């Protein structure tokens, strides 16, 4: 790794202000992208509805033209000019005029209908965006923790816990809970919707590799993420990006399904000339919605994530008054590699170092616009700008130590419990992809495969606690407290428990939950299965009803005209 060059010292405060400005600009850009997107989608939908349900004005025009042609033919044909023929001509003209007026009225009505439809659809699409925010933002931290297999920090991590506590005193934040991930790769992340309910998770490898001052730098970085509300910002941006990519992802899913079923892509059948003209007229909107917006959304999301990483680095230097520790930690992690086995792109931004990059082949990803983290060299050189006293020899030494660490602690291939689909819609449609704690209300058995005839892996007594990864189907994927994975029939009744999945491995917490269950047996939770709270379901239903009522109302009004 070439030694980073420092041109001129930069004040930490300036760097922090610069990064904040950059984030504001990027978020404003993302919101600015949404407006034409909503306009294009509502325009497209309203045009489609007009095309399907509107009257055919061209038939009226055809008849009118026929009448006028008949009239002019009669005039030219040289027939006797009697009162009767003049009467006939006037009558024909009058009819033609009335048809034209009718046609104009129809066109005005269509224009009004179109406008009203656009407004209603725009309102519906905006409501959908709001619902998306709510769903994505209310996902509990437990999802992320279960996905990584984290356990609460024990007595052997006292030093790290004290360090975190001290740093949060310096930052004026409540102390986040510390969790440990059983992975030899050094990495860390912070998660949580607001500082009072945040967690910081570190891998076992990080605790082994880093010294006290370096660990301080890393924990300060994570704490800065929490203090800057980065998880909330990244969730909002992720929801916005998902919203902008939704049409594209849906089409891609449809194509994938077709390809799976027919082994070749069968294009959508064209329904004639009219459909073709419709598509051509809509071309700019289609290009924007399906091509431009998704790409820009992804670029903006990655850019925001990178800029927040720089901000967290600068804030960590300010908090710990010790940028050297962070520099050395970064160098060590650069040498050791930060690949963590489970890396869904949706949560990649939460990690300390990029979890998808292998340590040595970092050069390949150096200029990647889609990376959630800036390249480590860039981060180190920015930290060096704060006049830290690290020599490049010390950095080389740290990188060497990191590589030595990987030699003695090779990354273990952790088999994932279920194939993590890279498609982001999965986050929404699958309910709880990361698992929630439920209590089983009647005794059941867990099967090896989603089939009642397969091998029984475990038997669960009534009232047992499980982590359920909800799956639409006849079987649920569950994990028992002693880490046994199996399939449970969906017919077994379950009750949602407010615990973190990592906590069910702790017998004391389990006992407490069991005793609470006896009294709470009568209380039934209704909307637990789909990952939305009852309030969310209610509001979603109200919104949906309003939108559809609006569409109905407008169409009725048009139909009666």
């Amino acid at each position, binding site marked *: 790794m070439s030694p980073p060059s420092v041109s001129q010292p930069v004040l930490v405060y300036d760097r922090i202000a610069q990064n904040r400005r950059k984030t504001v600009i990027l978020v404003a850009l993302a919101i600015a992208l949404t407006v034409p997107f909503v306009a294009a989608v509502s325009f497209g939908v309203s045009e489609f509805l007009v095309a399907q349900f509107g009257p055919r004005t061209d038939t009226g025009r055809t008849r009118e033209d026929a009448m006028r042609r008949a009239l002019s033919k009669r005039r030219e044909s040289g027939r006797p000019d009697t009162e009767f023929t003049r009467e006939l001509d006037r009558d024909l003209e009058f009819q033609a005029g009335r048809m034209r007026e009718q046609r104009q009225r129809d066109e005005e009505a269509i224009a009004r209908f179109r406008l009203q439809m656009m407004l209603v659809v725009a309102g519906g699409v905006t409501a959908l965006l709001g619902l998306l925010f709510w769903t994505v933002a209310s996902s509990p931290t437990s999802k992320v923790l279960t996905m990584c297999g984290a356990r609460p920090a024990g007595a052997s991590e006292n030093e790290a816990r*004290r360090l975190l506590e*001290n740093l949060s005193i310096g930052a004026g934040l409540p102390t986040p809970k510390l969790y440990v991930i059983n992975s030899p790769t050094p990495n860390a992340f912070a998660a949580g919707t607001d500082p009072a309910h945040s967690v910081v998770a570190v891998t076992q490898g990080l605790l082994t590799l880093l010294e006290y001052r370096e660990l301080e730098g890393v924990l300060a970085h994570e704490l800065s993420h929490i203090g800057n509300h980065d998880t909330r910002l990244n969730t909002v941006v992720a929801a916005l990006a998902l919203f902008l990519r939704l049409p594209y992802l849906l089409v891609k899913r449809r194509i994938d399904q077709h390809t799976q079923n027919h082994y070749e892509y069968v294009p959508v059948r064209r329904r004639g000339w009219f459909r073709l003209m419709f598509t051509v007229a809509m071309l700019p909107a289609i290009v924007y919605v399906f091509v431009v917006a998704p790409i820009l959304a992804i670029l903006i999301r990655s850019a925001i994530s990178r800029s927040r990483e720089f901000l967290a680095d600068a804030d960590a230097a300010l908090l710990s*008054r010790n940028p050297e520790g962070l520099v050395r930690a970064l160098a060590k992690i650069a040498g050791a590699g930060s690949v963590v086995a489970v890396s869904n792109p949706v949560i990649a931004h939460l990690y300390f170092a990029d979890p998808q990059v292998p340590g040595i082949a970092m050069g390949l990803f150096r200029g990647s616009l889609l990376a959630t983290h800036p390249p480590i060299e860039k981060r180190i050189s920015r930290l060096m700008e704060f006049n830290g006293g690290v020599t490049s020899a010390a950095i080389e030494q740290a990188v060497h130590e990191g590589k030595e660490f990987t030699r003695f602690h090779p990354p273990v291939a952790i088999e994932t419990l279920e194939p993590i689909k890279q498609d982001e819609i999965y986050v929404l449609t699958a309910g709880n992809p990361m698992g929630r704690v439920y209590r089983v209300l009647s005794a059941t058995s867990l099967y090896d495969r989603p089939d009642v005839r397969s091998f029984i892996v475990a038997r669960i007594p009534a009232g047992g606690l499980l982590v359920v990864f909800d799956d639409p189907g006849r079987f649920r994927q569950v994990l028992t407290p002693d880490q046994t994975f199996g399939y449970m029939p969906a017919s077994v009744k379950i009750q949602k428990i407010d615990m973190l999945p990592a906590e069910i491995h702790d017998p004391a917490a389990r006992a407490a939950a069991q005793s609470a269950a006896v009294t709470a047996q009568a209380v039934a939770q209704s909307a637990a299965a789909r990952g939305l709270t009852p309030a969310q379901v209610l509001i979603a239903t109200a919104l949906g009803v309003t939108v559809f009522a609006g569409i109905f109302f407008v169409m009725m009004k048009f139909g009666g005209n």
Partner: protein
Amino acid sequence: MLSALLFQTTAAVTTPAVAAALFALLMAFLMAMFAISLYNGLVRARMRTREAWSGIEVQLKRRASLIPNLVETVRGYAAHEHEVFAEVAQARGALAKASGPAASAAADQFLTQALGRLMAVAENYPQLQAAAGFTQLQEDLADTEEKIAYARQFYNVNALDYNARIQSFPGNQFAAWFHFEPVTFFTAEPAVFEDVQVSFAKG
């Protein structure tokens, strides 16, 4: 149509005089909002300094509760080291009497030095290391010192913010009017930094 009627009445009523009056009203409203937010910002900054100050006091109290235990443990093995114990007692008294950030910072500095000397004395007694819970006490003390340092840093950050707000342009007018006083930073006075003699003569 109702909207056309509404539009016509509005156009009729809005003479230039009325428009000017409305504009002036809007401007006054906006300025009032700005002034209110400025005042609230100052109040919030002052509250934060007070909260940060109480944070420091919490950590100082924590250390104060650790010290008797520590002193007694050391006294059990090194009863004749009177001067060190006297120094610690004196420093504790000074800290208890101190009021305000500057005096507290100086007293805190004294106490830290006294404790450092106490620990240096304790190093001479190897059987002390084996005493029940002594290492734990040592660790707790080191941890508490670090917590005090961070609490001090947090207080200084908030004091900086508050002082800056009081002295920057729109704020300083309010400060004078509503009696917002600047706060001092938690730093030790220069007199404290003179070299102190550590004696290892006894033991």
